[in-house]
Every structure is written in C-alpha cells, then in structure tokens.
C-alpha cells in the first residue's frame, strides 16, 4: 500500500536558521514526490517535485529536497528560514497513471521565531 508520513506536525525555528521538514513514503511503485506550501486560508502552491531525474531537487524560495530511496525519504530543507516561510507544508506521493493514487501527508506547520 502507498502512504505518506510527515513526521512532525509542527516545527518551530528561529529566523535565519536551517529548516528541516521530514517526509517518509511507502510505495510499491516508483513514485513521484511533491512538496506543496499552503498559507492560511489559501490554496496550495507547488514548491518542488521529484520525478525520477536528479535526486536533489531545487524548488522555489530557496527550498530543496533530496530523494533517498534507501531511506524512503523526501525531506524538505532550507538553509536559512525567513518569516514569510511560516505556513503549512504538505508532502505528496503520486503513483504513475492513476489520479486516484494521490496521497497527501497530514501536513507540517512551520513557525518562524523572530
């Protein structure tokens, strides 16, 4: 069965320090993996995606994620947090050719301390 686990429901970091949002997945197939960000009462915006090309994926706003098949992980990182990064982040796994196999993680709320 396919699943996505976001290990932390809430992460709080100080402005200017690194961000790490963890995501582990389970899939019987080669998945595509995505990170989306959602600001309060807004729709979701794509940060980055992995689709079996380079394992280190760079996204918008300085975020990047590394696909590690041996660890079944796709953690999201940013070297230096900014106040505008405060939002909800969703890890998503998608299985080839079936829209029904879109699985969202439960989300991680990122707070930034001044």
């Amino acid at each position, binding site marked *: 069965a396919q699943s996505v686990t976001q290990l932390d429901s809430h992460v709080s970091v100080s402005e200017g320090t690194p961000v790490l949002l963890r995501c582990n997945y389970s899939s019987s197939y080669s*998945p*595509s993996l*995505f990170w*989306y960000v959602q600001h309060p*009462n*807004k*729709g*979701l*915006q*794509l940060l980055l*995606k992995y*689709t079996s090309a380079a394992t280190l994926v760079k996204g918008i706003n300085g975020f990047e994620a590394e696909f590690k098949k041996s660890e079944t992980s796709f953690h999201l990182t940013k070297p230096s947090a900014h106040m505008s990064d405060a939002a909800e982040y*969703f890890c998503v796994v*998608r*299985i*080839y*050719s*079936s*829209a*029904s196999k*879109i699985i*969202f*993680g*439960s*989300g991680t709320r990122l707070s930034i301390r001044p």
Partner: protein
Amino acid sequence: SQTIHQWPATLVQPVGSPLSLECTVEGTSNPNLYWYRQAAGRGLQLLFYSVGIGQISSEVPQNLSASRPQDRQFILSSKKLLLSDSGFYLCAWSVPPLGASDTQYFGPGTRLTVL
C-alpha cells in the same frame, strides 16, 4: 497564463441544505480537474477527478457529487449537507494526459461551514 477560480470563497449552510461549489479554469484546454477536501488539522483528501467533459471518477463514497458540464468547469454538489461536510474545499487542475509527474495547480479554496 492559466488561472483557476473558485467561488464562493466562504459559505455557511444549515444541515440538510443543498450545496453547489464552482471551479473554472482559464487559459488551458481539456485540463484534468480535481476536487479535494481539507478538514481542520488534516491533509487533503481527493474527492473527485475528471479527465474530460462528463467524465467523473469518485474516490470516496459520500453524499457529495461532481459534474463537469463544460471543458473548464467543475462543480461540486450535495443534495443534503451533513455536519461532517464542513471543511476547506480545493479545486485543482493539471495538464493532460494523466500521469504521475503532473503538477497540480490549486485554486484559492472555499471554506464551508455546516451548522
């Protein structure tokens, strides 16, 4: 450029009343369309998706239904709302054909409160 609209932005409805949420996409043809629901403090749940006019796939059995009367219009409906239907409803589109690497583009959402 492509844009996606949802309305209304917020809605408060009594239990047992009907529902109609609308989503339209501009700037693209024959998009894949999706309806999601996000309950408070939880991730998104795919409700319906559509690959073309009149083609609807349901992912979760419930009292909701979806229709696609036009290429770029996707409607979410209910004949009688339940309290458990409260949530944030998001419409999304992606470029066809359907595939694992599709990026989904989300609308601004509709906040539905059922009282």
